[in-house]
C-alpha cells in the first residue's frame, strides 16, 4: 500500500487498496484538525491479524476523529469495522499501529481510556440480575461517579430515554428498542468524551431508529464525540459529519457524505434488471456494458432480486442517452433488459464505486 504525505501534519492519503481497482479522488482524507477543535480519536497504521487468520483483518488503517464530531464507519460485515471499534474500546489488542481515544493510548493505558469512552454494543449485555435503574447506577459506580451525582444522572437519563416509568423493570422484559435505549443511557452514565455505537439500528423499528438518530444529534450538540458503525447508507448519511468507508481491512475513503457523493460529479447511474437468455452470462454482459463509450463502471449487484441480474452502470453525462446503447449491448450478449432506472449517485453508489459491490 502506498501512502503519500497529504500535508504537513502527517495526515495520510487514503489509498483505495488492491481490491478497489479504481482511483479515488485525491482529497478524501480529513483536512488537518483545526487548532481549537482537538482530536477525539486518532488511529495510525492500525493492523490486526487474528491468530491463524490468513490475512489481516485490519491492514494499516489511519484516521482522525475531531472532538464533537459524529463519525460514521461504513462497510459490509467483516470489513474491519468491529475490529477497529474493538481496538479503540480496549477489547481487542492490535497487532500493530497506534490508537488514541481522548488523547489516551488504548494499548499503553487501557484503564485510562475506559474512563473516557462509552460503548453501546451490538448485542444486549445488560445486567439481567439488576433493574434498569440499578444497571445505570452500578455502571456509574464502576466508573467512580459519586453516589449523589449518579442518582441524579440516572433519573435524568431514564427520563430522557423514555424509561422513567419502568425503571424498576428487568432488562428481559423490554423490547429491542428499549434495550438499546437502556444501553445508551448506561454508557452515558459516566459522561464519556467519546461514545462508540456499534451497529445501533440493527433490528430496530423505524420509530426506534428515529429516536436513536435524535439522541445522536443531541449528543453531538452536548459536545460528545460519537463514533458509529453501520452498514446502513441512509443512517451513515443522516447522522455522520464524516464517513469512513472501509472494506477488507482498508480505508477506502473518508469525507463528509456530501463531498463523497460530490466526488462523483458528472456521473449518473442506470440500474438495469436483465433477464438471462440462452447462452448469456452475467460476466459477458457486464464486460460489454463496461466497454460502451461513456460508461465509467458497471457492477453486478450482489443481491439479484427475483429472476434477473441487476447491474448498476455509472455513466458520464446524461443517463437517458445511454438507455438505447445499454439495451442494445444487453440483447447482443443474449440477455433482455427488463427494467431500467436512472438516478443520481448517493452514498451507496460511492460505496459500490469504491468496492465494486453492494453493501448487502
Amino acid at each position, binding site marked *: 500500500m502506498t501512502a503519500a504525505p497529504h500535508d504537513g501534519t502527517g495526515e495520510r492519503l487514503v489509498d483505495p487498496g488492491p481490491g478497489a481497482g479504481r482511483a479515488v479522488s485525491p482529497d478524501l482524507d480529513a483536512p488537518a484538525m483545526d487548532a481549537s477543535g482537538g482530536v477525539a480519536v486518532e488511529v495510525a497504521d492500525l493492523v490486526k491479524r487474528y*491468530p491463524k487468520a490468513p490475512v489481516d483483518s485490519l491492514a494499516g488503517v489511519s484516521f482522525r476523529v475531531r472532538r464533537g464530531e459524529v463519525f460514521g464507519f461504513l462497510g459490509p460485515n467483516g470489513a474491519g469495522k468491529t475490529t477497529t471499534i*474493538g481496538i479503540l*474500546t*480496549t*477489547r*481487542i*489488542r492490535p497487532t500493530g499501529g497506534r490508537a488514541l481515544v481522548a488523547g489516551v493510548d488504548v494499548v499503553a493505558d*487501557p*484503564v*485510562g481510556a*475506559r*474512563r*473516557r469512552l462509552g*460503548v453501546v*454494543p451490538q*448485542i*444486549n*449485555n*445488560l*445486567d*439481567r*440480575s*439488576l433493574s434498569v435503574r440499578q444497571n445505570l447506577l*452500578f*455502571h456509574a*459506580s*464502576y*466508573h*467512580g*461517579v*459519586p453516589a449523589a*451525582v449518579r442518582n441524579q*444522572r440516572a433519573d*435524568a*437519563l431514564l*427520563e*430522557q430515554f423514555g424509561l422513567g416509568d419502568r425503571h424498576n423493570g428487568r432488562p428481559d422484559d423490554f423490547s429491542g428498542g428499549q434495550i438499546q435505549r437502556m444501553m445508551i443511557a*448506561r454508557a*452515558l452514565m459516566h*459522561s*464519556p*468524551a467519546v461514545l462508540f455505537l456499534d451497529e445501533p439500528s440493527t433490528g430496530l423499528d423505524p420509530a426506534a431508529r428515529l429516536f436513536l438518530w435524535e*439522541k445522536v*444529534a*443531541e*449528543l453531538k*450538540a*452536548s*459536545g*460528545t464525540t460519537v463514533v458509529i458503525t453501520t452498514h446502513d447508507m441512509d443512517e451513515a448519511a443522516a447522522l455522520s459529519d464524516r464517513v469512513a468507508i472501509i472494506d477488507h481491512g482498508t480505508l477506502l475513503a473518508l469525507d463528509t457524505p456530501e463531498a463523497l457523493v460530490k466526488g462523483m460529479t458528472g456521473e449518473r447511474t442506470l440500474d438495469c434488471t436483465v433477464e438471462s437468455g440462452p447462452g448469456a452470462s452475467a460476466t459477458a454482459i457486464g464486460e460489454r456494458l463496461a466497454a460502451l463509450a461513456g460508461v465509467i463502471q458497471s457492477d453486478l449487484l450482489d443481491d439479484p432480486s427475483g429472476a434477473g441480474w441487476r447491474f448498476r452502470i455509472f455513466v458520464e453525462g446524461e443517463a437517458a442517452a445511454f438507455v438505447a446503447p445499454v439495451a442494445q449491448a444487453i440483447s447482443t450478449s443474449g440477455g433482455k433488459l427488463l427494467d431500467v432506472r436512472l438516478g443520481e449517485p448517493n452514498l451507496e453508489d460511492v460505496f459500490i464505486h469504491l468496492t465494486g459491490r453492494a453493501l448487502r
Partner: protein
Amino acid sequence: MTVIAEEPAAGAVPGPMDELPKWGPWMTGLAILRRDLFVTGREFPVFLAQVILQPLFLLFVFGKVLTELGYARPGYEQVLFPGLVALAAVLTGLQSTALPLVIEFSYSNEIEDRLLAPLPTGAVAVEKVVFAAMRACVAAAVMFPVGVWILGSIPWQASTGPAVVAMIVLGSLIGAAMGLILGTYVPPNRISVTLTLAITPLIFTGSSQYPWPSLGTLRWFQVLSALNPMTYVSEGLRGLMAPEVPHIQTWICFVVAVGSLTILMAIGMIGFNRRAMGEFG
C-alpha cells in the same frame, strides 16, 4: 442547535464532564464486588439451600445413619466432619466461578460491562475469585451449626480456631481458582459435561471422607488423592480440628495449599485474559 452555556436545555442529553471524578481502580473493584454481594444478598436463602444440601445429606447418611446402623465405626464423624467442611469450601468456590463465567462470557455477555470498567482486566478475574471464595466461606461456616444439629457435637478446639479459618479461606480460594480455569478454558458447549466429569472425581479423591495416611494398603488411590489440592484442605482441617485422627502434618498442608493456589490462579488468570481479549478459537 443553540446551546446555552450554564443551564443545559431540559431534556437534553448531558455532555462529557470537564473533569473526571477522583477515582482509583480499587474503587471499581469494590463497586463490582458490591454488585455481586447485592445480587447474592437478595437471593440469600436460595444460595444457602444450594450450598447446604449436598454436605447435609453426606453428613447425615455417612455420619449419622451408617454409624447408628453400625456399618461405620463410632468416631467416623470425627474423620468426616472436617473433610465435609473442606468439601463445602472447595466445591462452592468452584461452582461459584465456573458456570457463572461461562454464562457471562458466552450467553449473557454481562461481563462485557465489567471488562469495560476502568480497572485492569486481571482485576475482574480476581474479583470473581474473591467473591466466589466469600460464598464458599459462608458455605463452610454453615456446616458448623448443621454439624452440631445432625451429629450432636463436632470436633473443635478453640486454640486452633484462627488456623481453621485460614485453611477454610485457602480452600475456598483454591476451589474458586479451579472454577476460574474451568470457566475460561472450557468451551461453553462442553461446560456441562466437563463439570460433571471434573466434580465427581474431585469430591471423591479429596480425602474428605477418609484420612489420607490410612490409605497405605490402597497405594494407587493414595497417590491419586495426593494429586488433588483438596486433600490438603481436608487433611489440614482434620489435623487442626481432630488431631487424634491420622492426618498429614498441618504445615505441609498449608504449604501445598498455598502452592497449588498460586499455580491454579496463574493458570486461571492466563485463561481469563485470553478469553477476555477474545483470543480463544
